[in-house]
């Protein structure tokens, strides 16, 4: 294994791949730093550039964007008090007060070093977890896969914010979308209504771009307007003693490790993502702290918790994607789509049949963390300037990249129409309180659920096998338990007195 990893490190350090990854990390840092441009959006923007690359180069570039983006969010969170990405929300709680107290350099660099350490610690879990879980998944039959996907969907549908019914409806609609076009087993057309365009079904990436990028931009225009306040980068003195900052972080080993574990776990849970990880880790750090009253006043503990967890979340998301082919969050959903474009199907066989790409991803994960710190050291002042790009300039350019990303997939306009349809649908879903994550997961898992369901019935028509096979039965019980838990939580939150709290 050590030999494979060292070979993978050598391939990532090949100039062609390395510089693509550096460019990706730079793009991620810029995208992550600009409020309103999420990491998912940045990955979508970079996606068309990777179409002409080989799989490893393309995926290394996207990992660069992912890790750069997680770190980029902390710059604007600390210096201007606006999180560049949702995964840096908790960083503003202490990062911004610390910067306002006259220590902007310490605020930013505590975040950067905590991100690096949290990310690297999670990387160890990624290397061990992805390979071991993939081995476990190899023992799965179609019953287990079906039950695993049902569990994933039910967890996401039931535990997303808002109504359970809406979450489950959103997931079911995502699954229904995959039934349009020819069926995956016998290629018989379904719900095509005689339209040639619908015969192949909707392509997955334009759906994702529409749901996440287009609808997000439209909401940003609504809620934030088109102008942002301008900040002067000259206002911030970013000089700091790195040794002192590192000593400060390492003097809190429990906070660092626990926050990393929280981020890792949230990352492993499908479609939850860094936005939940940083808030939960911050909350946990506050609960375990000897001085919880100081949280929010500009102490390093809060920054460490938030930043270590959001970078560890990347490792967790990649574990789920590599071992089971299930995206840990929206970014890995795009990466999964990109792998499929390159003819690679993530899942338990991925690590075994695509050793070079799989271990290359692990190597890229580690190198991208180091590259990100180096870029940040050289370009911090530039990022501060970048965050002031007005939305009225950003929106048209991002929309153009959305179109290019969709069109370039098969060089057909139908993909652009798909982007438009699902962009509008996503916008209305968000406006009416329907979560998008279950729908995206439904679209990703739809074919797999159908294939495994039909295969299991074709193998043995006894439906009780779904419950009597130990792993499958356990997964279905867990799915039911998550559903019951969600109902209980919804009922609790509806009780008088809690709603206003």
């Amino acid at each position, binding site marked *: 294994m050590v030999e494979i990893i060292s070979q993978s490190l050598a391939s990532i350090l090949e100039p062609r791949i390395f510089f693509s990854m550096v460019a990706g990390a730079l793009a991620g840092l810029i995208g992550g730093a600009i409020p309103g441009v999420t990491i998912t959006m940045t990955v979508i923007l970079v996606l*068309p550039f990777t179409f002409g690359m080989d799989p490893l180069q393309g995926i290394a570039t996207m990992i660069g964007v992912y890790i750069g983006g997680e770190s980029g969010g902390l710059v604007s969170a600390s210096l201007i008090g606006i999180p560049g990405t949702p995964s840096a929300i908790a960083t503003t709680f202490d990062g911004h007060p610390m910067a306002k107290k006259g220590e902007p350099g310490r605020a930013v660099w505590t975040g950067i070093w905590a991100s690096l350490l949290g990310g690297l610690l999670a990387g160890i879990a990624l290397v061990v977890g992805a390979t071991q879980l993939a081995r476990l998944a190899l023992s799965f039959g179609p019953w287990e896969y079906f039950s695993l996907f049902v569990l994933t969907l039910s967890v996401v549908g039931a535990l997303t914010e808002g109504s359970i019914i809406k979450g489950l409806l959103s997931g079911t609609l995502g699954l229904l979308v995959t039934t349009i076009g020819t*069926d995956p087993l016998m290629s018989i057309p379904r719900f095509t209504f005689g339209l040639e365009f619908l015969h192949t079904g909707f392509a997955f990436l334009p759906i994702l771009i529409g749901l996440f990028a287009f609808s997000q931009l439209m909401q940003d225009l609504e809620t934030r307007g088109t102008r942002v306040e301008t900040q002067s980068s000259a206002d911030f003195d970013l000089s700091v003693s790195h040794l002192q900052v590192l000593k400060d972080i390492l003097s809190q080993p429990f906070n660092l490790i626990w926050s990393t574990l929280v981020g890792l776990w949230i990352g492993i849970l499908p479609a939850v993502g860094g936005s939940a990880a940083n808030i939960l880790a911050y909350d946990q750090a506050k609960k375990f702290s000897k001085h919880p009253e100081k949280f929010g006043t500009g102490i390093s503990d809060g920054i460490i918790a938030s930043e270590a967890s959001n970078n560890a979340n990347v490792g967790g998301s990649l574990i789920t994607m590599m071992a089971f082919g299930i995206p840990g969050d929206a970014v890995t959903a795009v990466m999964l789509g990109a792998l499929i474009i390159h003819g690679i199907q993530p899942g338990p066989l991925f690590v075994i049949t695509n050793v070079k790409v799989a271990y290359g991803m692990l190597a890229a994960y580690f190198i991208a963390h180091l590259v990100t710190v180096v870029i940040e050291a050289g370009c911090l002042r530039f990022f501060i300037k970048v965050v002031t790009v007005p939305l009225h300039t950003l929106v048209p*350019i991002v929309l153009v990249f959305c179109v290019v990303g969709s069109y370039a997939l098969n060089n057909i306009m139908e993909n652009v129409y798909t982007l438009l349809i699902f962009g509008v649908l996503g916008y209305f879903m968000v406006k009416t309180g329907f979560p998008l994550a279950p729908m995206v997961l439904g679209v990703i898992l739809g074919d797999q659920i159908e294939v495994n369901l039909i295969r299991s019935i074709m193998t043995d028509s006894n439906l009780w096998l779904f419950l009597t096979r130990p792993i499958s039965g356990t997964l279905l019980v867990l799915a039911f338990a998550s559903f019951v838990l969600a109902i209980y939580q919804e009922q609790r939150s509806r009780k008088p007195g809690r709603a206003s709290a």
Partner: protein
Amino acid sequence: MSRDGWIGLGLLLFSGWLYTHLDDIPANPLVPVGPSFYPRCLLLLTIGLSLALVLQQLLTARAEKDQASRARRVESYRPTLVAFSGFFLYVLLLPKLGYFFSTALFVSSLQWVLGRPRWRRLPGSLLLGTGTALITYTVFERYLHVFLPRGSWLP
């Protein structure tokens, strides 16, 4: 009935309509469950969940809560409407004018309209639009070999 109730009713009708089309899917004698089996399960689930949404809205006073929370949010729909209309036109013009001209037109006009639409800003917007179209066209077509739409109205 509240907004969610109407959505539930709409989904109920839509899934019911799709359900009536399940018989159009040809059966396959080679497999015990045909290609309509899975969509049938999903549609039954959608119908059940849509019904639950309608019933939930009828039984709870969620409507007032929704309206109250909506009233508290400050939102401006103008930029969204402008961006959406512009994007719709862009998608329509793309196969006619081709990537370069439609992108230059789209980026320039949307950037100009979304900002303060004053005449002195127009040259800057035109420059941004043309620059974006030129750079992306060159990078994708020349260097990445990603082919972009050609215009059917152009020679």
